[in-house]
């Protein structure tokens, strides 16, 4: 099989994924139509699932799709029900909020870039496709051995969120009745 042709297709696919992710992310931020924002976020998160595919783990990619596109974006849709109707004039964005947003994302960006620069990157070309390194079994084993504390802490966070939601809903219902 011609490897150079295949490599070219892979490269092209990678940059298309990058473009889709960046486009999705900017749609998620800039338009004033809230549904565009949600769909843009879904597109960006799908692009990230594509990156996991390039990194050789179909499982993580599908999980990304299932949880972030399927659950998180759908949960954000509930916020649309609380938003102002489209035919009403959109209020100008408060200056302070925009600057705070820029500041927050700048801090995150610098952090992410410095971690990326510090990491020693090894070429992964050999085991992109049939890599057993990130198979379901290995990820499961890693989650329940080396990363067990992290795993448990995350589940604790989710538990707190659920209890908080139940209590908030219960209180507001008691007040209204």
């Amino acid at each position, binding site marked *: 099989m011609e490897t150079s042709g295949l490599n070219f297709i892979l490269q092209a696919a990678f940059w298309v994924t990058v473009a889709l992710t960046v486009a999705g992310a900017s749609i998620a931020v800039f338009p004033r139509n809230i549904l565009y924002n949600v769909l843009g976020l879904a597109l960006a998160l799908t692009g990230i699932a594509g990156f996991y595919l390039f990194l050789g783990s*179909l499982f993580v990619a*599908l999980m990304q799709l299932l949880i972030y596109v399927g659950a998180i974006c759908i949960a954000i849709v509930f916020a*649309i029900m609380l938003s102002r109707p489209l035919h009403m004039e959109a209020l100008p964005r408060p200056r302070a909020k925009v600057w705070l947003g820029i500041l927050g994302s700048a801090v995150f960006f610098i952090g992410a870039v410095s971690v990326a620069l510090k990491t020693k990157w090894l070429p992964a070309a050999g085991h992109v496709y049939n890599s057993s390194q990130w198979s379901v079994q290995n990820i499961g084993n890693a989650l329940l051995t080396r990363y067990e504390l992290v795993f448990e802490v995350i589940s604790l966070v989710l538990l707190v969120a659920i209890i908080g939601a139940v209590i908030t809903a219960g209180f507001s219902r008691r007040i209204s009745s």
Partner: protein
Amino acid sequence: MSEGLLGSELFRLILGLVIVLAFSQLNALFLVWLERKVSGHIQLRPGPMEVGPHGLLQTIIDGVKLVGKELIMPLKADRKLFFLAPVLVFTPVLVGFLVLPFGPGLIIHDMNVGVLLVFAFSTITVLAILTGGWASNNKYALLGAVRSVAQNVAYEIPLLLAVMSVVLMVHSLSFSQIVASQKTVWFVFIQPLACLIYLIAATAETNRAPFDIPEAESELVAGFHTEYGGMGFGLFFLAEYTNMFIVCAVATSLFFGGWNGPFGISLGIPGVFWFLIKTYFLIFVIMWVRWTFPRVRFDQLMNFSWKVLIPLSLVNLVITAIVVKII
């Protein structure tokens, strides 16, 4: 398969996609006819009779009519999203076919996370319905779309938990391994509760009656696709019936032995036919349910999922995990 020009895997994928496209159209044509026949006979009337033997060609005529219709868009609709939605709704449907095990070896791409693939992509359907409902700029469409989102969030959890209990027993997310492990005993006999939960939640996920409140024609005109006509509506319709096939095919492979005959008796019938017979029987049951039960109210729908199905499926999953660990 011989080493072809592009390698057998790519060739297989392309051939599979072509077959899937053809099959999904034929399947939808047949299912629409079947639905009208089933509803007709349940209501003591013959259903379509005029075109072809027993009206078999009726849906083809209807399809031609739909294709020939002008695409009408409401004046204040969101143009881009309005046309994006019917296309988007069809993507997950096509992906789902990639991993369905029609027979031993008759699977387009046997991957070890096949079950996950079907459910990961099925969430896109909800986004498409929401897009369509919102873009129509119509209150009935928006109400239908928002209901669909709430319903899908609620019913996806018991659906996945029911599937998880089967996956726990097989130790695999691959469809062909799940089917292969049901050679003698189908999982419906070992996991009857999970099977029931799966079928109920799947009916809700495909927006079928008695859970068809996103469409609810008696209160919401036609729900999320109120403003769609011609092929826009046609694509939503096609996706709904193809989704029904996928949901039933997944049920067949997870709980009803896939291509295996009952208790290992195959009667000389090839596996593909066993698979199709069981799948179409399940579809028939879903249609039967639709024309037998009235639509549930929204609060009943939500309470049933969050207070009955989710706790039951959680308990089922925990018991399965304990039993699997002990044996």
